[in-house]
């Protein structure tokens, strides 16, 4: 048994190590169960009893040194490997990312949905009516008889005698009152049509109609409901004012103005230098309308209101040309 031969073998194997895999192979061939050291340790018992102890010690010392050396080598190769791996995972993080497919609701739809949300939270439910409407519902039942001067206010598309494209969502009021008894709290969002086409008019646009009928509904309630709407839609501090106006189907009638959001009230083109923008037409339901639907006006009172969705969207987003909504240009649609 020659320790020097063992030493030489160990040195040779260690110096052959080039990679972390070599470390593992050498560890097995030297220190494994059937490795060189095991062989030497097994051979100790063949020695003289007196020499056994010394030889054992020498082998053990060498084994320990070898183990330490191998661990050192393994650590250093592992570190080197990790470094290489890290280097290989490099990317240029400034390259552009991949855009997901993003869809958008039309700004009119977004605004309409928001309006419906607000009124729903105030206890109103959604009602509907046809776009192709009878003259009776669009005009007469709303206290606008055939020769009424108020018909001049609206340019009507006619389908045939007595049939029109509704010029406002107000006929839904009549249809609801004809089919239901009070109390009522409804809104009617929808498409309306007027024979008009220029920078501030499109032949089709959207309105939201509102109607509340019950015992003791007051003008002050109309102010309350519309104030809550305006504050929710445009912000808590939005100035607003109620101003007398005229609609054939309400009496008294009121128009609601909000402080111009474009100029902040100092005057601009949008608010025609008044500092105010008109957004809602409203009023107490006209007694004649109640008579027309057979409601007892001694029993119930009510208010109604109507607003243009395009107008509210224009104010909300700062759009100055209503026709933009209907070009459907994706450079426009993608902004909302």
């Amino acid at each position: 048994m020659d320790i020097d031969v063992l030493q030489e073998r160990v040195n040779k194997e260690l110096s052959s190590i080039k990679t972390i895999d070599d470390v593992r192979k050498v560890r097995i061939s030297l220190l494994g169960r059937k490795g060189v050291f095991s062989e030497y340790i097994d051979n100790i018992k063949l020695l003289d009893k007196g020499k056994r102890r010394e030889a054992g010690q020498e082998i053990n010392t060498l084994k320990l040194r070898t183990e330490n050396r191998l661990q050192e080598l393994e650590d250093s190769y592992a570190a080197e490997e990790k470094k290489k791996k890290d280097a290989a995972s490099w990317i240029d993080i400034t390259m552009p990312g991949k855009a997901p497919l993003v869809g958008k609701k039309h700004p009119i739809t977004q605004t309409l949905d928001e309006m419906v949300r607000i009124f729903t939270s105030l206890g109103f439910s959604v009602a509907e009516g046809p776009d192709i409407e009878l003259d009776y519902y669009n005009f007469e039942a709303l206290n606008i008889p055939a020769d009424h001067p108020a018909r001049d206010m609206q340019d009507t598309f006619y389908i045939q005698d007595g049939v029109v494209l509704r010029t406002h969502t107000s006929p839904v009021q009549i249809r609801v009152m004809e089919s239901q008894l009070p109390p009522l709290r409804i809104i009617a969002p929808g498409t309306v049509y007027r024979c008009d086409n220029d920078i501030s008019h499109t032949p089709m646009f959207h309105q939201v109609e509102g109607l509340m009928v019950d015992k003791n509904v007051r003008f002050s309630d109309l102010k309350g409901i519309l104030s809550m709407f305006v504050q929710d839609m445009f912000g808590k501090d939005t100035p607003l004012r109620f101003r007398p106006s005229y609609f054939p189907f309400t009496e008294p009638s009121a128009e609601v103005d909000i402080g111009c959001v474009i100029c902040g009230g100092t005057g601009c083109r949008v608010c025609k230098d008044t500092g105010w923008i008109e957004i809602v037409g409203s009023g107490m339901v006209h007694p004649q309308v109640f008579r027309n639907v057979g409601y007892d006006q001694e029993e119930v009172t009510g208010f109604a209101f109507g607003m243009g969705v395009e107008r509210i969207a224009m104010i909300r987003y700062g759009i100055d040309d209503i026709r933009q909504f209907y070009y459907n240009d994706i450079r426009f649609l993608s902004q909302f």
Partner: protein
Amino acid sequence: MKVPFEWLSEFVVIDMDPQDLALKLTMCGLEVEGTEKKAPSCNGVVVGKITAIDKHPNAENLVLCMIDTGRESLPIVCGAKNVAVGDKVPLAAVGAQLKDGFVVEKKKIRGIESPGMLCSEKELGLSDDHSGIFILPDECRVGRLLHEEPFVQDVILDINIPPNRGDCLSIYGIAREVGSILDQRAKLPIFNLETEANKKGKDFVSLKVLNTDACPRYVLRMINGISIKTSPFWIRNRIIKCGMRPINTIVDVTNYVMLELGQPLHAFDYQRIRGKRIEVRLAEQETTFRTLDGNERKLLQGDILICDGEGPVALAGIMGGENSEISETTQDVALESAYFNPLYIRKTTRRLGIKSEASLRFEKGIDIDNVGFAAERAIFLMNRLSGGAIIKGEREVYEKKELKTLFITYSHINGLLGTHISQQDITKILRSLDLHIKKEGEEGLFITIPNFRHDINEPADIIEEISRLYGYDRIPATRPISPLSAQKRNAREIALGTVKEFFKGAGFFELINFAFFSEKDIEYFLIPPSDERAAFVGIANPISREYAVMRTFIAPGVLKSIAYNINRGAKNLRLFEKGKVFFSKEGAPCERFAVCFAITGREAEFFWRDKYNDYDFFDIKGIMEGLMGAFGITFFPQKTSEPFLNPQRGVDIFVDGTKIGWIGELREEIVKSYEIEQSIYCAELQFDIILQKMKLEVQYHPIPRFPQVTRDFSFFIDDSIPVGMLMDKIRGASPLITSVGIFDMFRKEKRSVSFRVVFQSYEDTLKDETVNRLQEIIIKELTNINGISLRA
């Protein structure tokens, strides 16, 4: 209506500036839409006085005026004939600026140097009159700058008069409103009518009103021996400021009094009234009549006519006739002031499409009590401007009616408004409006409505009057007394919500197009006449041919939006639109909801790491599958019957045996009709049927506790065998099969298709032999079919 502040101030004392008044009017219901400052467009022009007029030594038609400017005396060369010593005139000395920025320079005129010029109204930007030098009113101060003179300055209020407030279509009417607001009473103009004592109206003309329902009041007055001229500046100026055109002293006076008092007037040339007789009656039969604008008008039974001894001379309240019109040589005038029933006037104007300042006022109803006074006022002004003699007395027919009286309770007022307005405040407001309180009771008031307020017919109208003068801003904002109840969303709202959410999540932009299209669109899409989409609802008065009929389907609008965007450089589009479509069913219009969606191009133009394929049929089909999945609806695609789809790449969608829509590639020639060069995959669905079939309630299924097993199979399959059918077959092979997918398809002489089948048991872990047995069954079932073989 345009209301000059200066004119308004003649009737009420306004101690505030026009802007403040405008706000007050707006807040009381007369919305002031704008205010316009009026001043002559000149600078440096001064008031001068002519102290002497000498002949120009070198020119016969020129004179030399010595002008006193207050500081010096300047010799000015002048060509006008209308100047006299003592006149005050506008002097533009060298350096002064006139209309359109014209600057006056020193000039030699026929050898005489003129250090300035005298100006016409036109040169000062005051009117179009260039006939002579503008002779200034005597109250102008010599030496003062002209544009600082009060008589040329004004602010014009542009007031939006509500359609029911015909009583506000005059300066006096507005003044009455201002009076109510400022707690004053508007004053009517005061004048003194000097009549020719020995001539009486009844000797000149006879008057008969045959229908007092159509014309309850008619007044005729006469003035003789007038000479028609150009009106003085102050009259013309006011007429111009109100947006009308001055003509001559007689016509101007009728317009002036109409603007002032709201009473439309008509002047006849007395000498042209045949038979010296005026008769007001309804047309009895169809006739024609030439109005003074030169148009031949067809008159129908029921139109109100003013006739002389031989026939019509005016279409009452709307327009005079050519045959009795005032001319430059008219000497004797018969002036009409009348009240015509608004219903008759409206009917006639609507039919004839005539809108005049007069008919506008008659249509809304004028003040019947003011008819006589307005006639006097006009005759007085005609006399003042055109001379002549006023004939004493008027011819008049007046059928008086009792005034309306309404009763209203205090509790009704405060109950409807939600206010606590005191009885004193209520009566004070009513009085300020000339609403006469006939009787004051414990509970409420009897109120008499004056004739000029055609808009007040019932208690609610009185409440409006009280509320608007009380001030809407003083009415509190309250919460309704009735309790809130939870609101249920209706099915359509919910379903529309699902559509919007689905498409937004799937990367689609929503379009909103007009609900109109044109017959051309139906033609382009090759819709046969028997198809319901050819049974359109037409618009009688469309804005253009492009928008002449209501759309019967949405796809053409979507296609137009695609073309619009492609023309602007966007080639890759995912778009959807929801909305109504309209049909004519047995002559009656009906409408329903539809949804359309379309894709074109590819998902993105580029991404540096990936390669994109152009969209194909399977992209749009996947979207349809996703949408139907969102509604919980199982659908069955069938070979399409739509004429506009590529027959190889289109399917009709059936649910429970009913066709609800289609998907596919639009035919090339259709896309080309819309000037699109790229492939469009499109789909349209009837929304109402989805509403009936949808299952939106979600039922939770427990997640299986046992692992699933996946097996792949590959077959060669003839093209004649639809793979969809095979997938159904595999799915039907065992309830343990939870999903069947296609993970590969390629073609090598024959079509090779690879299926991935997932097996899952909810009861136990699947054993190999179970899955193997199922695998055998699947292979057997498929390979039994002629044209299918297992790929090794």
